[in-house]
């Protein structure tokens, strides 16, 4: 089966968090490129996710989340027991994961003996890749009997089977730096997977600390080690684009531009507007949740149930909690978005002049579905703008928006703007 390739630029992938995300995505199929599913969610929600993938016909890939195996086992527990989703997942990851998952964390020597992968390392690699390939594949026997039944009834299958994943991710682990044993293990797992599955699109995930961005040597090493793969996924742990310094933003740019210049496609596993601005050069993209998940700390506990609704503020490219959105838009209604979703809500409430009463009713109507759709549409418009405008035009618009917010002291409303200036500088450098 032919694997769909990412569009030229830029690619927007959304991480499926809760079942309700389907409806948001189904409502706006042109606003995104594909979806990402964490492995434990894939196995736990196999049926509804498989149906969604089959009907949406969008590219997807599975994040194997193997980094958790080497971190505090508590991250996979709920009330001292292994979460049910991980209980279902870990047997698919081979002997070591089945034996120790949730009880003790992997050690690098479990997978690497100093010169080559151990048997457990090789098994982990094969199991993890196979899981991603198979998780949404219906049982062949079941599929054939269903086909025969449908043929008898002279009916089409109601839902297509999902295509194969767009790419496959070898087991990966978090490393503080390229000198960390786990960096070496991950790299070797990636090489092994590429050889063992040579017909597949194997994209390693580079999962490192943000301290790597402080070291030109570390950046060079990462580029040297990973530029020859078919593509790469990049995850700088806890890297919040809105809070990071200009220097680190510039380093991220150097890293991602470095991959682009060596013609290595890349996808930022937790990316926001700044990473989006870097996607214009080559085949590349970003992954986030729908209105959350633009940054993630590897040690953050995986929570179920999604995030509380927040309003995306287009001028600052940040999310605002209800109190912030209400206050800011009440005093400055000119910053109210005019996307289709926002316009439709305004029409529904019969809005005239944008006074406090209208803003109150608007934001009351907005939770939670429209809030996610509003984010989706705005992000799609941003991607289009980044793609169609020159880099300088993007930089100029960041500076203009910085000034607009500075003028009204937007910081008093907790709508920050300093990051816009840092982004503009970093993109210029």
């Amino acid at each position: 089966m032919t694997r769909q390739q990412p569009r030229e630029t830029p690619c927007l992938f959304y991480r499926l968090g809760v079942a309700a995300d389907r409806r948001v995505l189904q409502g706006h199929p042109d606003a995104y490129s594909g979806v990402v599913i964490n492995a434990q969610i894939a196995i736990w929600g196999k049926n509804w996710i498989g149906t969604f993938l089959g009907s949406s016909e969008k590219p997807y890939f599975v994040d194997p989340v193997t980094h958790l195996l080497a971190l505090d086992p508590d991250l996979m527990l709920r009330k001292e027991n292994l979460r049910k989703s991980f209980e279902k997942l870990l047997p698919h990851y081979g002997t070591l994961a089945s034996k120790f998952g949730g009880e003790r964390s992997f050690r690098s020597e479990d997978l690497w003996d100093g010169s080559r992968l151990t048997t457990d390392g090789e098994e982990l690699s094969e199991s993890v890749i196979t899981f991603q390939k198979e998780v949404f594949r219906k049982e062949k026997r079941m599929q054939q009997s269903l086909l025969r039944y449908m043929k008898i009834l002279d009916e089409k299958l109601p839902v297509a089977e999902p295509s194969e994943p767009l790419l496959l991710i070898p087991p990966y682990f978090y490393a503080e730096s390229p000198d960390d044993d786990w960096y070496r293990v991950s790299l070797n797992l990636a090489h092994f997977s590429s050889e063992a599955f040579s017909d597949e699109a194997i994209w390693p995930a580079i999962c490192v600390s943000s301290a790597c961005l402080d070291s030109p040597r570390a950046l060079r090493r990462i580029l040297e080690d990973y530029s020859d793969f078919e593509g790469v996924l990049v995850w700088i742990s806890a890297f919040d684009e809105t809070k990071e310094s200009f220097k680190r933003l510039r380093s991220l740019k150097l890293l991602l531009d470095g991959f682009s210049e060596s013609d290595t496609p890349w996808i930022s596993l937790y990316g926001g507007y700044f990473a989006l601005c870097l996607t214009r050069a080559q085949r590349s993209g970003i992954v986030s949740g729908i209105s959350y998940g633009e940054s993630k700390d590897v040690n953050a506990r995986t929570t179920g149930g999604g995030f509380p609704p927040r309003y995306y503020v287009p001028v600052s490219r940040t999310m605002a909690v209800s109190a912030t959105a209400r206050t800011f838009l009440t005093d400055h209604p000119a910053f109210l978005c005019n996307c289709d979703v926002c316009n439709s809500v305004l029409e529904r409430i019969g809005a005239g002049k944008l006074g406090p009463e209208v803003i109150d009713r608007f934001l009351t109507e907005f939770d939670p579905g429209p809030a996610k759709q509003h984010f989706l549409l705005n992000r799609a418009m941003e991607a289009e703008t980044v793609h169609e405008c020159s880099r300088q035009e993007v930089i100029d618009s960041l500076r203009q928006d910085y000034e607009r917010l500075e003028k009204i002291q937007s910081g008093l409303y907790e709508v920050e703007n300093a990051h816009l200036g840092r982004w503009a500088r970093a993109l210029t450098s």
Partner: protein
Amino acid sequence: MEDHRGVAIESEQNLVDRIEVMFRRGGYEVQREVQLLTRYIDLVARAPESGTVLAVEAKVRNWREGLRQAIVYRLAADQVFLAVSTRFVHRVNHDLLSSFGIGLIAVDGQAEIVMPAEGSEVIHKSLQDELISEITSRGEA
């Protein structure tokens, strides 16, 4: 509690204690730590006859942070005050507070309104209803 110079170390708690005394003497019903959205208003005072609701955000010295909080309370309370220790009240930008209609209370041994608040013109009815419901149910408890 005193610092190394023998000067009393204030806390927000102390400030709110004195503000509560001031409003109770004025005949208001007072409640503390009242939730509004994801925040907690330090003190809410309600005039029993008119039903006017006042919200107060207290900070010992960080008036800017206090202002950020107080700005939100305008959506639910009829009048909003920022309260700051008298030792630091000279640092407050009166014009800035005024531009939001927010009043100012100075607190040392007692609390005193040094700049009155204006009536809020940006009330969100849904939030005001929630606030009144919260203080009413706490008052009945």
